[in-house]
């Protein structure tokens, strides 16, 4: 079994996202999107059971590759990454085009994603990749049971449902679906010698087009003249009085 697992490098999520001409500003040092840790964990559990080969796939500005290293530290075998200046400001479809090609390059049976990135939030890339690859997409996975076959539990709007993992498919894993492992010192050192193959856009079949045009970013902030009170023992009463005033009680 061969598995491709997507890892996105994002700006430090603790800092506010800033934009330049409609594109997110990306510092040289970006980190692994925590959302991807869940997908990587699923890939590694499959690796342990089925002796699968797990390759991290990633696109975008690579910079120091810190986020790629963080992904490798968890336990994948290597990485295949693509960086190209022309991909700056890619729409979802362009991104999915590149990632589906990377999945093909590593001949992945299973391609795994988080459900949506923390900086872009488009929430459609796994499904788009599955359509491009012509395989089913098992989206919003919230639990994984690995036995001789693999049973995936999907989050639905009303509850959940189960699906047996097909031999060729794309998975998207929700945060909280599995418990991502923490690398130890040995894992961190071992990651440094794992192979990272770097390719360019000329190495893949790329035909997506930009159909979205950035118009502007408008400030719509309304400074609220709210009250801020420091509790000196009667804070609970202030809230109760307010709830009464609002006729909430």
């Amino acid at each position: 079994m061969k598995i491709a697992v997507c890892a996105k490098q994002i700006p430090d999520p603790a800092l506010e996202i800033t934009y330049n001409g409609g594109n997110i500003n990306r510092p040289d040092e970006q980190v692994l999107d925590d959302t991807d840790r869940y997908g990587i964990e699923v890939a590694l559990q499959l690796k342990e059971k089925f002796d699968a080969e797990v390759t991290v796939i990633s696109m975008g500005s690579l910079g120091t590759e810190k986020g790629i290293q963080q992904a490798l530290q968890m336990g994948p075998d290597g990485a295949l990454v693509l960086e190209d200046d022309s991909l700056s400001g890619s729409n979802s479809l362009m991104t999915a085009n590149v990632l589906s090609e990377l999945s093909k390059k590593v001949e992945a049976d299973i391609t795994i994603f988080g459900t949506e990135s923390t900086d872009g939030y488009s929430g459609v890339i796994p499904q788009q990749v599955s359509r491009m690859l012509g395989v089913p997409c098992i989206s919003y996975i919230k639990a994984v049971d690995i036995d001789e076959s693999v049973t995936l539990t999907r989050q639905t709007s009303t509850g959940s449902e189960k699906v047996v993992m097909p031999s060729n498919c794309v998975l998207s894993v929700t945060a909280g679906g599995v418990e991502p492992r923490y690398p130890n010192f040995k894992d961190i050192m071992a990651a440094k010698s794992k192979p990272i193959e770097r390719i360019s856009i000329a190495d893949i079949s790329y035909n997506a087009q930009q159909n979205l045009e950035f118009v502007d970013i408008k400030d719509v902030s309304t400074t609220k003249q709210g009250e801020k009170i420091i509790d000196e023992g009667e804070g609970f009463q202030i809230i109760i009085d307010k709830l009464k005033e609002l006729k909430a009680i």
Partner: protein
Amino acid sequence: MKTLIIGEVVDNKLSTGALEIVTKANDLGLDYEIVTVGTEESPNIGSESFKNTYMKCSENKLSLGSVADKLKNIIEENTISLVLAPSTYVGRDLIAFLSVDFKSSQVSNVINFEIEGESVITSNSINGGESEYNSKISSPNKFLLIRPKSFEEAALDLNTNYETVEITSEDPEVFDIFIEEKTGPQLEDSKIVISAGRGMVDSANLSLVQDLASKLNAAIGGTRAIVDAGWMPYSQQVGQTGKTVKPDVYIALGISGATQHQVGMKDSKYIIAVNKDEEAPIFQIADLGLVADTLSIVPKITENL
């Protein structure tokens, strides 16, 4: 502009998300039809005011890929250029599939849109709602995922007047379907919502929130951080990737107020925030902010109500 709205069956009727988009489509005078996806027998999804096609799926199949194939035909046959879907699990899957088929990237998380000639201008909310990011789609086919509660729900008399298309497919089998029991006030329509964040320290302390919510007849929500930590099911997550709520009163307990959370609650009519950290961003959007130890104040409110 010829438009298709993708709806779902929820509680045996047309989803609120679709009815919200109907309002906007009427405002813009769009020439629209609806396709509704579901598994129920004869749900109330029809109306005198629009054409609806019901794509009835088997609940034992993961059939959205096949639904997308049918939608593709409808879009081509009826020369539809604008496709709108609420940003739900089903909507996201379908819009993603169609965007690939028509080689036209979708715009996600749209909170408003306008028609400009043959183009569509979309607005997204960024930086916790402080800014709007506007884009223009000029490709012949345009796909939009609309955030819930962006428009008022259209008030319509729904009936069973529509055409049904049975979806049969070779898609993967689905089993062990579990329907979460809905008890008490629901996040989407409750007048009061109480949400908890990391400041509640431990999942055991959520019983304090529960007690207060019972007294106020409020729905309970949570931040992504505590949902990820397993304190609450995903269905109770409020924020960018969770639900959007607009109650009369929103009470944020131990929530710092990351922009991703704010997107899901900032339009509440009145926001009360309790947090130990005086600098917490939630205070910037709160109407009433109380700098206090959340754990000790919540039981005091409950006792004295």
